[in-house]
């Protein structure tokens, strides 16, 4: 198995080659405005190191913050027609009702609410009003809309109304990009619908970005399928990421944690990823980051995305340091470190300057920071350690000491001993942990559904079957599937034995 992992970050585009379970090469290139050039540069640099000569690559896995940045910066978004099949319920809370107004203004192409949807037990809530859907489609077409988000009551249990409506819309608008909320899972109409609308808004950007990724890989001369990493540390084939870009929103931090697990050989540990400006602290469980609970806001929009539970603090290799009184971060020189840091001839004292003064980092000009005495340097490092310790303690879920893996370019700030930590593990290639995480990503499938009148064990088995099928559909090798999360919740106030089961499985990418 030979894979290239690429992380397109805000500052650097990192690329690594993983071969037979080892990091065979790792390079960094500056991220470019158009993303493509940075990827091409990093692939060329990797090629120039000679590690790729005469080798067949099984896959290129790219992690990017491109899609989430589009939402946060309100750029490159497509106007979306919202079609909700739920009337007469939900009328007082129409689609986009809880979006930040500026984002809604950009994305809301129109709202159509018609009769349809199901009950929690699979009964019809209302028959689908097909005539109203067809009329809505005509109006969408007349308004010049090209992206459509469709939602229906309890569609994760029964997606037939959403699918039928999608057919009817496609008949009128054959070129439209249509997102059904049932493809994005999870109970909670508003949050699921929001995810669907965001997804539809990203349709054009996803198509263009992924085409750019593909052309960069082609240009580099590498013949391998492209995979895109997702928020939960798994990958999907490029074609599916093009269809569901929201799942690839926030993969950077996840990839770092997965990379940390891989490089250290630990599957249960705390991870601290010290970047230039911020430090993310998370927890690995079975080799995957622990997920945040339920509601996650993206660009101000409530969703139910699978996201890692992370605590971010303003500490990094570029953090401003002031000595009297002692303060480290949260301001940072960021990617300007090599110009603005004192050891590099600049005027801003940073944590990196202190590390240079202590002889920890062989960077810049140590003479320029000779005025920092040992005691002062120790105070700065103690403060950084205190900040890290507090963040780790807040994220820990067990009282005992736990191992801590320190990765990222600023990992030198993490001392060998910390209270509450059994041992601190620094790993080789830790500064490229995110690209490593992308390279080793697996494929996942999830099921979140209510089962009625089934014994608990059968309900869980049924959910597992659905999750397995979805993972295989996403490109997993069925033989390698394993369940990494299984949660069941009997439903209060519902009659009979209603149980909501959520199962997530992962497997290796199927070869060929």
């Amino acid at each position: 198995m030979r894979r290239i992992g690429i992380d397109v970050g805000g500052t650097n585009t990192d690329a690594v080659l993983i071969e037979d379970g080892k990091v065979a090469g790792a390079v960094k290139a500056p991220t470019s405005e158009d993303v493509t050039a940075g990827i091409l540069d990093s692939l060329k640099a990797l090629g120039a190191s000679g590690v790729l000569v005469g080798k067949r690559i099984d896959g290129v896995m790219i992690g990017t913050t491109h899609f989430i940045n589009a939402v946060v910066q309100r750029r490159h978004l497509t106007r979306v027609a919202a079609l909700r099949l739920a009337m007469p319920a939900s009328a007082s809370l129409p689609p986009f009702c809880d979006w930040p107004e500026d984002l809604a203004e950009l994305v809301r192409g129109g709202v159509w609410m018609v009769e349809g949807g199901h009950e929690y037990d699979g009964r019809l809530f209302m028959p689908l009003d097909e005539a109203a859907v067809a009329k809505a489609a005509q109006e969408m077409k007349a308004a010049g809309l090209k992206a459509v988000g469709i939602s229906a009551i309890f569609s994760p249990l029964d997606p037939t109304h959403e699918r039928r409506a999608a057919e009817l819309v496609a008949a009128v608008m054959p070129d439209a990009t249509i997102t059904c909320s049932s493809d994005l899972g999870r109970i909670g109409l508003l949050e699921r619908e929001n995810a669907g609308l965001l997804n539809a808004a990203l349709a054009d950007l996803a198509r263009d970005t992924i085409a750019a990724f593909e052309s960069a890989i082609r240009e580099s001369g590498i013949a391998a399928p492209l995979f895109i990493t997702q928020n939960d540390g798994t990958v999907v084939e490029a074609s599916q990421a093009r269809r569901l870009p929201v799942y690839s929103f926030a993969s950077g931090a996840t990839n770092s944690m997965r990379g940390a697990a891989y490089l250290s050989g630990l599957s249960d540990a705390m991870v601290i990823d010290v970047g230039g400006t911020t430090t993310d602290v998370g927890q690995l469980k079975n080799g995957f980051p622990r997920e945040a609970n339920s509601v996650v806001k993206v660009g101000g929009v409530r969703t139910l995305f699978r996201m890692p539970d992370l605590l971010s603090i303003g500490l990094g290799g570029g953090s401003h340091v002031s000595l009297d009184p002692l303060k480290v971060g949260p301001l940072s020189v960021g990617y300007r470190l090599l110009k603005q840091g004192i050891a590099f001839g600049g005027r801003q004292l940073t944590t990196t300057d202190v590390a240079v003064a202590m002889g920890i980092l062989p960077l810049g000009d140590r003479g320029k920071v000779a005025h920092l005495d040992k005691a002062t340097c120790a105070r700065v490092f103690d403060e950084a350690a205190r900040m890290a310790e507090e963040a780790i303690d807040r994220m820990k879920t067990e009282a005992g000491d736990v191992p801590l893996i320190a990765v990222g370019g600023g990992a030198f700030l993490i001392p060998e001993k910390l209270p509450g930590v059994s041992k601190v593990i620094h790993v080789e290639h830790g500064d490229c942990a995110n690209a490593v995480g992308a390279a080793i990503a697996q494929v996942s499938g999830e099921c979140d559904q209510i089962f009625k009148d089934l014994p608990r064990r059968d309900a869980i088995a049924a959910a597992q079957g659905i999750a397995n099928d979805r993972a295989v559909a996403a490109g997993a090798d069925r033989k390698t599937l394993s369940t990494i999360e299984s949660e069941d919740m009997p439903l209060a106030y519902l009659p009979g034995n209603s149980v909501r089961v959520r199962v997530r499985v992962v497997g290796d990418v199927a070869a060929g």
Partner: protein
Amino acid sequence: MTRRDLGLDDIESLAVGAWILGTGGGGNPYLPLLNMRALYREGCRVQLMDPSDLADGDWVGTVANMGAPLVGQERLTDSLTLARAVTVMEKHIGRRFVALMGMEIGGANGVRPFMAAAHLKLPVVDADTMGRAYPELQMTSVAVGGLAPYPLTGVDVRGFESIIVHKVPTWKWAERVLRKVCVEYGSVAATSQPPRTGAEVKQWCIHGTVTKAMAIGHAVRDAQRRHEDPVAAILGIEHGKLLYKGKVVDVERRATEGFLRGIARFDGLDDWRGSELTINFQNEWIIARRDGEPIAMSPDLICVLDSVSGEAVGSETIRYGQRVTVIALPPSSIFLSSRGLEHVGPRAFGYDIEFRSVFAT
């Protein structure tokens, strides 16, 4: 007659406070809050009325949603449907209400009376019948007071308005009959609970609970803005008691007779390091034990709060690893009588122990 105009900021605080008074149950008030934001954008306004301003012969409508919070997350409670439950009741009894009141201040039902009130242009009385959230209809101050458990109405958004419970012998029967209807509707119904006279509200309802929820919510939101400790802010304005700080280590859930029952386990942090807390729940947090010893139980309010945000953590959504602070708040004195304890004391939930208040010195 003094009536207080409520601004949207008051409603935002009410939502945060009502979720805390939900003591683990009652459903998150987020969707009712969204409805209120929309209604305020459309120009609707609501007013709060002091119970002492009711004439003894006035009639007050009681508003609540019944059903599974999960179904509400898909159907998204509609404000007009709640208003319909009230107008169907008015038509049935042939009287107009002068005001509305909530059955349950805790959880999403704490905000819902205002959704109906905004449409019907009626004030909401600063009172309810639980002072918190409870899972069943007989767990109210008006049931303790022996007031009539009928009539009741149940309305579905699709126009089913046929359900009027004209007469039932007991509150338990009211619960059973209305619950069946609610299940047929799809496990959610907008209901109007038995109407109350001004005299009944003054004698048997729990006063000041809307103001209390708003004050708690305001304290939490204010502390969040100032980056201060929101839990300390709550304890600063309520006569509450800090019980425990810890992390969730296990949550065991099972559905029995249509309720979510189970037990949450916590490991102590800070001053509570090395000490274990368990809380049994039936939708709401019912009994807390520290190292095996009961330390708080219904009717005392057991509130599990997110240690950082100070906002409530519900029994449906609490999960492994969350850092929580557990506090107790005092219940209405109505529930502390021997009759009150029959309805909501530990034995009403199947725990054969004598009620001992956390606030007894």
